């Protein structure tokens, strides 16, 4: 989720969908996006849509919507673009502090978990359950490594900025998304590990 739900979060949503599909996990995951101050009913901005296509996502058919409690309550994982968004999510649903992260933060922690070698062997359950079980394990790594600078854990807001900013922001989203999906796929299917 992000602020307006017309640039960053729909990008992340569509790229996540594309990446999970590439890994054959699309059946296990349901991805949606919302904004704290969403421009309800609006489609993605042109630049954001173009960037999404560039990174292999499909931008069509997205409609901005406002974040609401039930969305957060029903989610297994909430990924935000900035830390203020994360705070907004937790204010809506305090329990969400256990599964709300900024997108780059989750990517960083997922890599930490993989590199630590401490990830638990997944039970032979459905993909969805395995993925769900990974969230608290990733969360347990919070505070063990630092982002270097706080802004490393955030995605830049491109709204009403130049194409250059759009490109930079989209690159941040795409990098984090592909890291997350790669690591989650690896950890949920140890047999498939190279």
């Amino acid at each position, binding site marked *: 989720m992000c602020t307006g739900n017309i640039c960053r979060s729909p990008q992340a949503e569509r790229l996540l969908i594309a990446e999970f599909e590439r890994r054959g996990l699309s059946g296990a995951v349901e991805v949606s996006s919302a904004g704290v101050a969403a421009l309800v009913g609006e489609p993605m901005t042109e630049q954001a849509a173009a960037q999404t296509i560039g990174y292999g996502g499909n931008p069509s058919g997205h409609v901005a919507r406002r974040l609401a409690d039930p969305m957060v309550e029903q989610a297994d994982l909430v990924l935000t673009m900035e830390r203020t968004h994360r705070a907004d999510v*937790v204010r809506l649903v*305090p329990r969400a*502090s*256990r599964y709300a992260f900024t997108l780059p933060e989750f990517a960083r922690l997922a890599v930490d978990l993989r590199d630590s070698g401490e990830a638990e062997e997944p039970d032979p359950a459905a993909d969805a359950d395995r993925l769900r079980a990974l969230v608290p394990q990733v969360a*347990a790594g*919070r*505070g063990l490594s630092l982002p270097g600078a706080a802004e490393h854990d955030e995605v830049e807001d491109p709204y009403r900025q130049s194409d250059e900013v759009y490109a930079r922001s989209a690159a941040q989203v795409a990098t984090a998304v592909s890291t997350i999906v790669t690591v989650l796929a690896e950890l949920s299917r140890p047999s498939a590990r190279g």
Partner: protein
Amino acid sequence: MELRDYLRILRRNWVIILVITLAGVAGGATYSLLQTPQYEATTKVFVSTSSADSVSDLNAGNSFTQQIVRSYAQVVTTGLVLDPVISELGLDRTTRELADQVSAEVTLNTVIVDITVTDADPVLAANIANSIAKNLIEAVPELTPANADGVAPVKVTVTQSAQVPDEPVSPRVPLNIALGALVGLAFGIGIAVLRSVLDQRIRGQRDVELVTDRPIIGAIAYDPKAKDRPLIVHADPLSPRAESFRSLRTNLQFVDMGSDRRSFVVTSSIESEGKSTTTANLAIALRDSGLNICVIEGDLRRPKLVDYLGLEGAVGLTDVLIGRVQLSDALQRWGRNNLFVLPAGQIPPNPSELLGSAAMAKLLRDLESEFHIVLVDAPPLLPVTDGAILSKQTSGAIVVAAAGRTQRNQLEAALKSLESVDAKVHGIVLTMMPTKGPDAYGYGAYGYGYGYTQETSSKS
């Protein structure tokens, strides 16, 4: 002050002392360079009186001669001798000025007068000296006229005429430099002692003992990289710093025996003394020993703890206190074991009231029954009352004092503020302790070293 203290002062300030000493040396050298070199030429004259016959006469003559010699030495620097010298050599100076350049000394128990002339020009110095000797001889008849027999009672002979000196006598470079160094050294030591006397900053155990009789329950090694990796106990468990947190953990177990309230406030006198870092690391160290730990962010003004721990602090203590959020929802697990964190939550307008409320007291009781140890990170004591209020609400306070940062009077005032509300002070934790140098903190002084430090030091 004991000798030990002085030695520590010298070790602590050796740089300043060295710099000021070198400045003294430089001063001496500069002074020497700025001086015009002065040359000395000496002529020796022998003063004799007419010989006497008998021994008694001889004795009388002797003492007479001695007096005469001394008088003649005086005459040398008077106009009687110098005026002719000035006109003879065509000198451009007054009698007084010339007299200042001339000294006449009688070598003890002899009748020899050394006439020494100092001048910037070596040749002129010799000429003046010789001219003085000549004119002194010429002045003799005027001073002691010949007696009836035509025998002059006093006779002055030049025994050694002045030579042109090769080397200047002043400036004396080595002497000036040595003097400069000495003065600089004395000055430097003076400044060092003064600084230490005026410097109120706490540097180590001794300074704390001057302020309070409360025990020092921990001394945390200084780590320049603490900002980048605050959670040292987790990041580098074998480091000396992590070891010092484990010692603190051990000491904490001894503290407050016999009380069933296992909640502690971590506070300090002023800000940035390492409270939050100490709280976080102590919590992790306690957790590592298998205890269930709860850490509360009690600094409702500038919460830092959640940032160190990498958690989201939007919801926490304040939301629980006003009943908007369930405690179980607001508590966040940190890491894989039983360490739970309650962030500050929304920043309220009235932190002190909230922290002193009955709801806070009840919350603490609940948490104490739930966890082995509850740690509360509090704001500093001097700017606000929150820390003292929290100390009253819990079993007592652990007061952090940063070595080289906190002033003695600040710590004193902080402890007084706790005293005034009847809060217990469990002990003092020194942070940012130097690991090298005069105030270095020896491991094992406040706990048990397990040999980690020797291993790491032997490796390096």
